[in-house]
């Protein structure tokens, strides 16, 4: 009987500590939307890992919400896809020749800028399971800061912060995607490597 009580105590203690660390993961994955002073429908630009993004598609705000994972990183054999998802759909940037092994390797993007006009850097928009490749006439994706996220000296995630804008056409109609900004965390739960 004493042995079972001791075993139960060990299991409960292990579950307690497991729950605590998972609680940090959960809280740091949550979105904190602080309205931009000039564009209150968009989140204020930050570099804290607030898990938000936003842009105007013409005059319609395309922003992250509290229910959808704001970003997913999907790594394939020769491309890294960065997909920002909100209620309207998913905007995905396909970065060529960038194959990180894990979320820590994303630090290599720090300070990098990708001209979107080049055909090698593809941008797609997915809505209602339909994916369109955007024909970009001008635009840039900039990773202003990519850094580690540490909690009590322990590395937990990577933080990607930056801006984007572009001019394109959707269903033959010219569209401007402007004032784009993102501040997202990437960890084990949203980093996918396809072998």
């Amino acid at each position, binding site marked *: 009987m004493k042995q079972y009580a001791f075993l139960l105590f060990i299991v409960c203690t292990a579950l307690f500590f497991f729950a605590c660390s998972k609680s940090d993961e959960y809280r740091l994955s949550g979105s904190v939307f602080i309205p931009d002073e000039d564009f209150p429908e968009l989140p204020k630009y930050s570099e804290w890992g607030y898990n938000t993004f936003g842009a105007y598609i013409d005059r319609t705000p395309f922003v992250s919400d509290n229910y959808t994972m704001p970003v997913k990183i999907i790594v394939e054999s020769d491309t890294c896809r960065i997909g920002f998802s909100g209620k309207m759909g998913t905007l995905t940037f396909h970065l060529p020749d960038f194959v990180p092994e894990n979320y820590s390797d994303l630090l290599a993007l720090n300070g990098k800028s990708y001209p979107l006009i080049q055909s090698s850097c593809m941008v797609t928009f997915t809505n209602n399971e339909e994916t369109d490749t955007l024909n970009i006439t001008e635009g840039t994706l900039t990773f202003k800061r990519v850094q580690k996220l*540490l909690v*009590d000296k322990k590395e937990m995630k990577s933080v990607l912060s930056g801006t984007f804008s572009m001019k394109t056409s959707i269903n033959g109609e010219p569209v401007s995607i402007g004032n784009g900004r993102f501040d997202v965390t990437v960890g084990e739960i949203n980093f996918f490597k396809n072998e």
Partner: protein
Amino acid sequence: MKKLIWMSIFSVVISGAYAQKTSNFKIGVEFGQGSVEGDYSDKWNIRQDLITSLYDHGLFSSRAAYAQSDFFYWGIKPQVSLWNDRVNLYSGLRFTMFDSNLGDRNGTNFFYLRTTNPDAVEFYKIFLIKEETAYLSVPLEMSYTIFHSNILTPNITVSFYGKAGMEIGLSIFSKRNVNFVSTTMQSHEHEVLNSVEQPNKLYSTLYGALGGQLTIGNGIQFNVEGIIPSQILTKNHNSIIEPDTFSGVQLSVQFPLSMFIKNN
């Protein structure tokens, strides 16, 4: 010239009061407590997590981190009554202690951002940041009796009054500490505390109160007051909370000075 004018006014008041009965002079003690309304100071770099709630559309969400500041005070209070006890002037010496906390509404930890690491977003998990500050101040108050009546017995007077006052003082004690989630992080306490300046040593308030008073036959007065939402005038008196207003309650007892002076 200004000093001369103020001294003249003060002399007239004191002379006028002295010309009246010595029972118009009283000495007493006061005790009060209350709380400060406000939000935590944004000088602390805290990740602004929101509380999850049933109303999860952002309409009713609030920040998980919160600040709370309570105070208590006690003092010695000389009093001069004028114009048939209609108007009362108070001063004295007051000791006030503020106890302020910055914590998480869910009772867990909040994430404090360490700004001295340029290469990473680095958070410390903190349960509580606590600050205790004590002030010694001189209050100046004036009350006006709105209503009084010998409603219970001829020897007992019940009064209601309104009061306005201000105080000015200096900090005599200030202490801050940080409770980290992990005891191994406690060595970083000074780093966290040094990121925000110490509270202002000067302290000044402007306040009002409404009170009830019971005066018994020998002149002893018992007072109960409610401090209406009032203002702390000095900036940065507290590093935890950005104060909007403060309010509270006060109890005091006033004894006629004639009780302590022998009549020959």
